[in-house]
């Protein structure tokens, strides 16, 4: 109750940042594995990767979050932090954010690979480069540059999507806002505080990724 203190807003956004950081790492690791599976020459791995992407890209993140608590924790008994309800909520939020965004990371990486013309690999092989050399010297450097822009939008989407963690009781930005609205009523001031917080978090990142993808674009 009482007024919305600056310290409360800061600590809520600190939780938002923590959620974003842990989930970004998780999504990057998992997404890279799925991407490798999808571009691999092995049919079975391709199919598993495609299944993963189609499943998690088309499921609402809200459903995954709610399932983490009501389904996994309470019904299946998979408690990620038995000693603390808050920690369990936080960890499930990180898991679900990672699982969900891994599908988008995978597609971002794959679209980076797709920007590389087949002629590049053909030329590299014609020159006598081995598979490893072709990958490390020719294909992957170009593919990563092509993936910067979509990876950037995925990271920004992830930061915004950390708000969904509020539906399972995490006191991050959206959680604090919803509590404040309940206690004090909704006002444009409260909205602007939280909205601007996200603008501050995402705007510089957006500019950074746009300028990076422009600077590093492969001229063709």
């Amino acid at each position: 109750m009482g007024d919305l203190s600056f310290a409360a807003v800061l600590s809520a956004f600190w939780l938002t940042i923590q959620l974003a950081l842990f989930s970004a790492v998780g999504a990057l690791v998992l997404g890279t594995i799925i991407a490798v599976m999808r571009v691999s020459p092995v049919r079975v791995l391709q199919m598993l990767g495609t299944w993963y992407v189609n499943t998690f890209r088309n499921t609402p993140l809200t459903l995954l979050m709610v399932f983490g608590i009501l389904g996994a924790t309470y019904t299946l008994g998979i408690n990620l932090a038995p000693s603390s309800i808050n920690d369990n909520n936080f960890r499930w939020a990180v898991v679900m954010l990672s699982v969900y965004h891994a599908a988008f990371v995978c597609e971002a990486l794959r679209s980076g690979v797709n920007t590389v013309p087949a002629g590049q690999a053909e030329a590299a092989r014609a020159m006598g480069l081995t598979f490893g050399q072709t990958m490390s010297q020719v294909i992957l450097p170009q593919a990563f540059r092509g993936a910067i822009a979509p990876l950037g939008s995925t990271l920004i989407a992830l930061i915004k999507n950390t708000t969904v963690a509020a539906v399972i009781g995490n006191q991050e930005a959206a959680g604090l806002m919803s509590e404040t609205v309940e206690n004090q009523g909704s006002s444009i001031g409260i909205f602007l505080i939280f909205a601007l917080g996200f603008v501050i978090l995402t705007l510089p990142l957006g500019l950074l990724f746009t300028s990076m993808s422009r600077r590093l674009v492969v001229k063709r």
Partner: protein
Amino acid sequence: MSTSVLFDAPGPRARRRHALLALLGLVIAVGVLFLVLRKMSAAGQLQKDLWTPFFTAEAWTQYLLPGIWGTFKAALISMVLAGIFGIVFGMGRLSHVTAVRWVSGVVVEFFRAVPVLIMMIFFFGVYAQNNVFNSELNPLAAVVTGLTLYNGSVVAELVRSGVYSLPRGQSEAGVSIGLTPSQVLRSIELPQALTAMLPALIGQMVVVLKDSALGYAITYLELLTWSKTLGSAYANTVPAYIVAAVLFITMNYLMTVLARQAEQRLSRRGRTTLPGVATAPTGGDVEPVPTGGIGGWSG
């Protein structure tokens, strides 16, 4: 995948290695599936009577169909309003009046940067306090407002990049026959941009359908909320969420297929289409449009 950039046609040794990797992948996948099923059976979630309700008419007429209807209702209204919002502000961003361009730019960038849930919570509070709609309609109105503002801004960016993707000759020809810049925009560029946008617009519907599940947080009765109710009514929480997920995936997958068909139909007619938010990653070798600024998918 036959003309993959990454790999040569496999020889006998590579083929053996691939078979080994395939086996490994299968073993891991089956292992994960086994773990999930064991966990579910340990919690008694595989019992037949938890799953049989889904084959009764009651579960569908009382819970799931109202849920699907709630999700679709919110998504459809939002998409129509987002289309209008997007065309207005997209044209605003292309206006030759600097002030209009600036204001539209700030509005679009702002609503793309703010999470949809934050907007929904805010508008739900505003509508409830001021009795803007009756108490039954308030959650729907808040969901629609949030979805419209965010997705409208995305559509505005689509309009803008759609117009930018047209050949210069189009506007030059318009100007040379004596049209004003705004006439060129309205009668030459916009109609072509909208056609090019169509697949991306249908793809955006996937985002809207998924995001409507955020209504769960503000008591809007959509598929996720109804599935939760169903889960407590039949005491089958886990099966209820799995069925809800399958329904969501099916709806969204159908939308993706529709978007791809629209894309193919347009390209058969010799039109170029815009790689969309949801279709771009699967669109093969098209390069994503550098829209710049902030954006991306939402949950």
